[in-house]
């Protein structure tokens, strides 16, 4: 699976995940009350400097914003329509800066480091009989299911084409759901046979 993570090590990789998340949260809270174009422009410029310091691969990820552009144009237009173009520009600058900043944390933090950083937040879930390790297991299962489900969809599509000569499209959805549910039953049985998912308390 493709990842947003930068394989090439940068200085920001060395900063602990918890600090990066804390900084992101604090910055997003700190800028909420402001809406001056100069301030937001400065923030966006600072974030872009951060990207430059992270190297070329990081700068390439700015292209991730492209699918967002039509929506931003519509929103800017609505602001203009209601008579406050400057507020609209400040809004767009703030959005761009925060999206890029948050993406910078994702780019420079490995998924398991992020998992470790948020583990303390998950601990209260033990009250509901769900251990953080069960959450980790679910994350792993989900990521494993994705390519498996793709293969299943492809197989269903191929057999549909073989029977009818047409593309299955949405018609595959119902058999797909039934097949996947059967798959999940098998997985659950295999999990139970191996001692089951981790319970609330650590053993």
């Amino acid at each position: 699976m493709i990842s947003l993570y930068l394989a090439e090590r940068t200085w920001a990789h060395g900063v602990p995940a918890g600090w990066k998340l804390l900084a992101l949260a604090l910055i997003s809270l700190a800028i909420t009350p402001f809406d001056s174009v100069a301030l937001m422009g400065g923030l966006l410029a600072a974030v872009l400097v951060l990207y430059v310091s992270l190297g070329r691969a990081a700068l390439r990820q700015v292209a991730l914003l492209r699918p967002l552009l039509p929506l931003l144009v519509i929103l800017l237009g609505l602001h203009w329509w209601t008579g406050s173009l400057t507020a609209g520009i400040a809004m767009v600058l703030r959005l761009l800066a925060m999206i890029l900043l948050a993406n910078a944390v994702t780019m420079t933090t490995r998924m398991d480091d992020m998992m470790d950083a948020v583990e303390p937040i998950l601990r209260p879930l033990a009250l509901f009989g769900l251990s953080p390790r069960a959450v980790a297991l679910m994350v792993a299962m989900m990521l494993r299911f994705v390519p498996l489900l793709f293969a299943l969809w492809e197989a269903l599509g191929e057999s549909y084409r073989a029977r009818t000569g047409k593309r299955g499209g949405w018609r595959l959805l119902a058999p797909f759901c039934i097949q996947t549910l059967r798959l999940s039953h098998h997985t659950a049985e295999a999990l139970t046979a191996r001692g089951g998912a981790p319970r609330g308390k650590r053993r």
Partner: protein
Amino acid sequence: MKDRSLVQIALYAAIFAVLGLMPKFDLPIAGGVPITAQSMGAMLAGVMLGAKRGALAMLLVLFVVALGAPILAGGRGGLGVFFTPSAGFIFGWVAAAFVAGGLMSLLRRQAVFASALIASVVGGIVVLYAFGIAGMALKTDLSLIDAAKACLIFIPGDAIKAVLTALVAQTVARGMPEALLSRTR
């Protein structure tokens, strides 16, 4: 929580990801606005799994997105998506699945297709857009009415997805009734 529920939550979270990654699934209406099948994943999770497990499946999706996996439509993901104007929709998926699942078990005695359609429309459109529009107004300083205008273009696509979800629920109810967990105890 039982092993089976655990696996099913992970499964529907994965189905949600697959629906987002499917490139050919865009519905070609509303003048080329990219409409993905993703929000159908929230409807499906609620209608098939029930309120609690459906909402947990969507929470798992949010968690994995926050961890940095690019599993949202168009390969988006990471912490950045929580700062986009459509972040309200992302949080809305949890509520959408919960409401859809709740309605599904509330309408347990009615026909599957009709109740799944009602559940998908109320959960996956009414509740989802309430969250989405509120989130957009909050993020962009627009009034609620203006934010609603920016979202309405997606409603026809979501109506189609609600019908598809109901069709799937009906087929599954026929082919594998025990799999419709929102209706079994």
